[in-house]
């Protein structure tokens, strides 16, 4: 796209034989998250090997690759959810608006409020729909009054495209909704704290095609407001929702580029094999 190659000076030279640099550059003004030379170890096993990637506001980024290739692991590095796994160790540099998120003075709680996450399986809390959305604003003290809270909940549910379906039953349990509605509730819950980025870990893999279409539509609408990264097993989905795609294989970033280029004209043999269905 037009942004590619503008800011070569932004790129840290990567080790010999890797081709990431040129692709990992995006326009400075919309750049949100930047990862450089990230390695992840689970005990002695290396799960991620030297991954560098940029994420901006304008472009939805999709991570694709076969199961176990490390795409979810890497996604979880972006808001330090790997901290909850005691044996996981992350090295390299990941920044959010230029701040190193693995710096010792970075408050993880604050970070996760800025970079939200939506999981593979919808995981609403066993509380009412209202309380699910109000959860984040409440713990971060974002609403000064009951009216504020009502407004935040309504705004979040509207953005998640769920308001019309649930406005009359906000006190019903969140777990009583359908799978697709639950997932949109989780997205509403994530955007209720007004984050800067949203990480989605295979958000549609447990949903039927209609619910999937709704979530994809929602991702289109949220683009530009939030930096969005989505992990998906479904290559058509990656092609539909993302502007940029990263292909992971065996813990390495094989190729990162504009989605249209990557799918029509992959530079790497392995990428080509994967998207044509030869393995994975």
């Amino acid at each position, binding site marked *: 796209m037009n942004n590619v190659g503008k800011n070569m000076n932004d790129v840290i030279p990567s080790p010999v034989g890797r081709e990431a640099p040129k692709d990992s550059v995006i326009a400075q003004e919309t750049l949100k998250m930047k990862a450089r030379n990230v390695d992840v170890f689970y005990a002695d096993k290396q799960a991620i090997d030297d991954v560098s990637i940029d994420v901006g506001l304008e472009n939805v980024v999709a991570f694709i690759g076969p199961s176990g290739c490390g795409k979810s692991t890497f996604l979880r590095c972006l*808001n330090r*959810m790997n901290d*909850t796994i*005691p044996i996981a160790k992350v090295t390299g540099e990941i920044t959010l608006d230029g701040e190193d998120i693995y710096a010792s003075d970075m408050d993880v*709680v*604050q*970070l*996760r*409020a*800025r970079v*939200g*996450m939506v*999981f593979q*399986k919808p*995981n*609403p*809390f*066993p*509380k009412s729909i209202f309380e699910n959305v109000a*959860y*984040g604003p409440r*713990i*971060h003290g974002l609403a000064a009054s009951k009216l504020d809270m009502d407004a935040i909940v309504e705004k979040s549910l509207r953005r998640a495209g769920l308001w019309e379906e649930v406005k009359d039953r906000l006190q019903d349990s969140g777990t009583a909704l359908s799978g697709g509605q639950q997932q949109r509730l*989780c997205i509403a*819950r*994530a955007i209720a*704290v007004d984050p800067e980025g949203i990480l989605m870990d295979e958000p549609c893999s447990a949903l039927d095609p209609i619910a999937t279409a709704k979530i994809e539509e929602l991702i289109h609408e949220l683009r530009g407001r939030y930096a969005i990264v989505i992990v998906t097993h479904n290559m058509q989905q990656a092609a539909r929702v993302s502007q940029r795609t990263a292909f992971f294989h065996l813990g390495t970033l094989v190729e990162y580029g504009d989605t249209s280029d990557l799918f029509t004209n992959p530079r790497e043999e392995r990428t080509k094999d994967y998207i044509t269905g030869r393995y994975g």
Partner: protein
Amino acid sequence: MSALSLFVLVFGLATIAWIAARFRAARAVPLGEARAHSLPSYHGWYVALWLAIPALLFLSVWSVVSPGLVEQSVLSSSAAEALPASQIEREAILGEARALADGSLSAAFNEEARGLVPAYQQASGYYGMIGIVATLLLAFAGGAFAFLRIRPDFRARNRVERVVMWVLLIASLIAILTTVGIVASLLFETIRFFERVSVVEFIFGTQWSPQVADASGDEGSFGAIPLFWGTVLIGAIIAMIVAIPLGLMSAIYLTQYAAPRVRSVMKPVLEILAGVPTVVYGYFAALTVAPAVRDFAVTVLGISSASSESAIAAGVVMGVMIIPFVSSMADDSIAAVPGAMRDGSLAMGATNSETIKRVLVPAALPGIVGGVLLAVSRAIGETMIVVMAAGLAANLTVNPFESVTTVTVQIVQLLTGDQEFNSSKTLAAFALGLVLFIITLLLNIVALGVVKRFREAYE
């Protein structure tokens, strides 16, 4: 031959039959023919079961019936005509004669008994022989019947499986029937008690003094309110004030904060606490906690009359005792909350303790409540600690520094020592037992219901 050696003999025969039948079944399929329906060992089991079960059933019935038959034949013998008419004397002489006959007594006190010995020996030899012959006949008949049925297409496996099912069914029925029997015996004695003392007075009366009941009549001495209040005060209030927070917090620490190595040490240690005999807790309560509580009451609170037996000493120690119950149930139910819930909350930027307080504990609450109810039902059935630390005085008081007593302690009190089984005092123990049983039963039903609903929510 005694019943025991006969039993061993039948067992040995069954083993031989098992081996023989297995061998025969293995040979029964000619080479190249279709496969037999059942494995040889199933044929072995089939024959062994046919050999052993009818024979052993007969043996067990016979060992119950034959002493009666022996006695009858002795009584009808000529030597028995000289026996006294009184039932008790006759029984005594017969018992002596029996002991002389089987050699467990060497010398007789009664001349009549000595006269009966030959008759006894003859009769028991006769019936014993019948028993042996019939048992062995049944064993051989059963074994032969089954052995002759060994054929490649005989469905021995299905039949053996059915026997296994019956054995398991009988095993589970024994526990249930025992419970029913216990309840029934409680029920009959309780009905007898309520013929003497009115139900209303028992349940709503506030005066408990069974010691004076014999002297001053039954009215006004059997009000169980002080006992149930004491039980509730110690088991459901004081013990729970100790056990719920400590148990819950230790469960939260163990599931959410403890490193795996710490958990692997602390959890078993905590569970050992559940294995300490309650008498040991009783010592601890009576010798250490109760005096400390009294000193505290006298010096700090200025209650000069504080007794060395108090509700609070027993309740606190009981609370410590049931910490493992609360904590292991809470541990299980917190661990059963899907990890996705926790991740979801952490990913919202909630801290660990916010996640626990707002998501994990509410989601696990039914399981925790179930655990607490089970702990309560255990606490109110507890006796030893209360006997040793809380005393025997049936006071109706809310002051935890006073001595109170509980239902179980009073049952012990009413039934120990020399008691005649016909007084209202002893019968009252059964009534108390029944009411306690009903209360714990209801608590358990509610608790299990709550836990079950919780499980369904996440499956």
